[in-house]
C-alpha cells in the first residue's frame, strides 16, 4: 500500500533506457489510445460502408447506454476507493442491481402502477442496494470486493424471487418514449447516455465535490488529515453507483420491453469498461469522459464485428487482449510494481 521508493517520480529517471521506454509507453498510451480508437473507426468505415453513418453510430450509442451508465457508476466507486482492485473501490453488485431494479420497474408497471411510481421504485431499489454496500464497507469494514460480492448474491436471489426467473414484460408511455427514435433518427437511449454522462462528468470532473472524491481515493490518509469526511465520501460513492444501477435498470426495461433474467452477464463487461477508462485520460486516472470513450470502444468493436460478419465469440477475447495491452503499457509507464 505504501509507496515504494522506486515508484516515486524522478527517482529512476537517471536510468536512461528505462526512462525512454517509460516515456514511449506513456506517449503511446496518451496519444495512442485515441489514435488506435480513431484507426479502428477508420478501418471499420472502410471495411463496412454502413458503419460510418449517423444511423449506425446512433444505434451503437443507444445499444451502449446500459453498459455506459453502469460503467459510470463503477467509475465513481473506483475514483472514490482507489484503483487497487482488491483493497480499493469495486462494486460487483452493479449487474445484479440492474437486474433487480429492472424487475422492480417491470413488476410495478405490469401491476398497473404509473410510470412515476415505477421510476421511483427502480431508483430507490438501486440506491438502497448502494446503501447496503456502503454500510457493509464503511460501518462493518468489509473489503469492498467481498462486501459487494455478498450483496450481489443476495440481490440476484431477490430478483429471482421477485420474477420467479421469468421475463416480466412491461409497456408504458415512458418506456415507449425511451425506446423510440429522437431527432436525426437517433435512438432516445443514445441521447440519454450522452446527457447522463454530461451530468456525471459535470459533477465528478468540475465540482469541488468531485475533486474531493479523487483526493479520498488517491490518498485517504492525506484526505483525512485535510479534514475531508473520507467515510462519508466513500459511502456516497457506493450509493451513487447503486443509483446508476437503478437508472440502468429502467433503461434495460425499455430496451428489452421487460425485465431480463441474464443481468449477471453484464458484470465483467462493466468491470472491463470502467477499468479501461484510465487509458483515455492524460494522467491515467479514471474519468467519466474516459468511461464514455471506453464504452463506445467496446460498443463499436462489437458493432463493427457484427457488420463484418466476424464471429461474436472473438469479441470477448479481443476485450481480454485489450485490457492486458492497456494495463501492461500503463504499468510500464508508471514503472514496475506500481501497477
Amino acid at each position, binding site marked *: 500500500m*505504501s509507496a*515504494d521508493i522506486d515508484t516515486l517520480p524522478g527517482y529512476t529517471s537517471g536510468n536512461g533506457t528505462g526512462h525512454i521506454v517509460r516515456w514511449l509507453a506513456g506517449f503511446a498510451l496518451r496519444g495512442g489510445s485515441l489514435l488506435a480508437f480513431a484507426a479502428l473507426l477508420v478501418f471499420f468505415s472502410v471495411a463496412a460502408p454502413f458503419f460510418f453513418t449517423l444511423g449506425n453510430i446512433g444505434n451503437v450509442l443507444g445499444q451502449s447506454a446500459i453498459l455506459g451508465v453502469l460503467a459510470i457508476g463503477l467509475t465513481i466507486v473506483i475514483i472514490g476507493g482507489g484503483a*487497487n*482492485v*482488491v483493497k480499493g473501490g469495486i462494486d460487483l453488485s452493479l449487474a445484479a442491481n440492474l437486474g433487480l431494479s429492472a424487475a422492480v420497474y417491470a413488476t410495478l408497471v405490469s401491476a398497473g402502477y404509473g410510470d412515476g411510481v415505477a421510476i421511483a421504485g427502480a431508483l430507490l431499489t438501486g440506491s438502497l442496494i448502494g446503501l447496503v454496500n456502503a454500510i*457493509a464497507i464503511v460501518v*462493518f*469494514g*468489509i*473489503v469492498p*470486493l*467481498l*462486501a459487494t*460480492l*455478498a*450483496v*450481489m*448474491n*443476495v*440481490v*440476484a*436471489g*431477490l430478483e*429471482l*424471487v421477485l420474477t*420467479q*426467473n421469468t421475463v416480466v414484460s412491461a409497456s408504458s408511455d415512458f418506456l415507449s418514449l425511451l425506446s423510440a427514435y429522437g431527432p436525426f433518427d437517433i435512438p432516445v437511449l443514445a441521447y440519454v447516455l450522452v446527457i447522463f454522462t454530461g451530468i456525471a462528468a459535470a459533477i465528478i470532473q468540475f465540482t469541488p465535490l468531485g475533486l474531493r472524491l479523487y483526493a479520498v481515493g488517491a490518498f485517504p490518509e492525506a484526505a483525512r488529515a485535510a479534514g475531508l469526511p473520507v467515510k462519508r465520501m466513500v459511502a456516497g460513492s457506493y450509493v451513487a453507483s447503486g443509483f446508476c444501477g437503478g437508472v440502468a435498470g429502467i433503461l434495460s426495461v425499455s430496451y428489452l420491453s421487460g425485465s431480463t433474467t441474464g443481468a449477471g452477464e453484464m458484470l*465483467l463487461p462493466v*468491470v*472491463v469498461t470502467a*477499468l479501461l477508462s484510465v487509458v483515455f485520460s492524460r494522467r491515467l486516472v479514471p474519468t467519466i469522459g474516459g468511461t464514455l470513450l471506453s464504452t463506445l470502444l467496446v460498443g463499436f468493436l462489437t458493432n463493427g464485428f457484427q457488420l463484418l460478419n466476424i*464471429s461474436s*465469440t*472473438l*469479441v*470477448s*477475447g*479481443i*476485450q*481480454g*487482449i485489450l*485490457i*492486458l495491452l492497456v*494495463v*501492461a503499457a500503463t*504499468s*510500464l509507464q508508471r514503472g*514496475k*510494481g506500481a*501497477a
Partner: protein
Amino acid sequence: MSIAANPDHNPFGLQSVGQYLLRYAVIVALAGVFAFFSFATTTFLTSANLTSILVNNFTLLAIVAVAMTFAVAAGGIDLSVGTSVDFASFTFVSLVLAGYPVGLAILLALVSGAAVGGFNALLISGAGITPFLATLGTLFIGRSTQQLLTNGGNPVYLPQTGISPLFSFIGHGHIIGVPVPLVIVGLLIIVAATLLFRTRFGRVVLAIGVQQSVARYSGLHVPGHIGLIYVISGLIAAIAGIILTSTVSVYIPNSGGAFMLNAIGATFIGTTLSREGRPNVPGTVLGVLLLSIVANGLLLTGLSFYWQQVGTGLLIFIVLAASFLNRRGRVD
C-alpha cells in the same frame, strides 16, 4: 467496534464471550447451520446425505478454493481458476475421445491447467500487470478460445461405452469404501497445507503476501515465487476439471466460471479463522464446508431455489460482517 477496542476489558465478561464468538465466526456459523438443518429437516442428518454433501457439494469447490487460497496468500487473486478447470476438462475429454490412454490424458489435462496459470505468471511477473486485471484478461481470452474450439460453445460428449473404466473410476469409484474424489481432495488439502505452511517456499509466499516490498528488500526473489504460485493455482484447479469431467462424462464450455465467486467467498471466509486475518488452507476448507452445508440444507428444507440464493448470500454477508467487525477491533 468500540467494545473490542477496549484494551482493559474483563477477560471473563460478556465482552470477551462476544469477542470469541466473533473470532470463531466460521465455526459458530458452521455449528449453527448444522444444528439448524438437523432439527429443521428429517433428511439432513443421515449418513447418505452427509456423504452427498461431501461428494456433490464440497469436493470440486474445495479444490478450486484451495487453488484460490494460494493466489490470495501471495497477495493476489486468481479470477481465471474456472478457465483452468475448463481447459483441463476440454483436454481430458478430447484426448480420451481421440483414443489416448486415460493416464496420459490426465497428465496433459493437468499440464493445460498449469499452462493457463503459466500465462497468468507471464502477465503478472513478466509484464507487471496486477493479478486482478491479468487473470481477468485471461478469463476473457479463455472464454473466446473455448468458443472457437467448440464451434461457438457446443458441449463435447463422451460415448457411454468403449471408454476405459479408469475414466469413470476418478469420478465414481471407491477406495476402501471412500469415494475417489474425496480421497483426492483429502490428499490435496494435506499437500497444500504442508506446502504453504511447512516449507521454505510457503513461508516466502506468505511473506510476499503480507508485504511485497519488504520481501523484495529482504532479497527474496519475488517475481519467481509469484509466478510459480499462479502455475500451482492453475494446476490445482485442473484437478477439479478432471474430476468434474469424469463425473458427468461431458465437457461444457465455460462452465468452470461458476466456481470462481464461491471460491473467493470461501477463501475470505477462511481468513477469519487466522489471528492475523490471513488466508489459510484449514479456514478455506471450513468456508467451503459452510457453503456446501448451506446449499444442501436449504435444498432439503424445500425452500424455493430462488430463496436459497438469498439465504446463502445473507449468511456469507453475516459471517463477513462479524469477522471484519472483530478484526477492526484489533487493529484500532
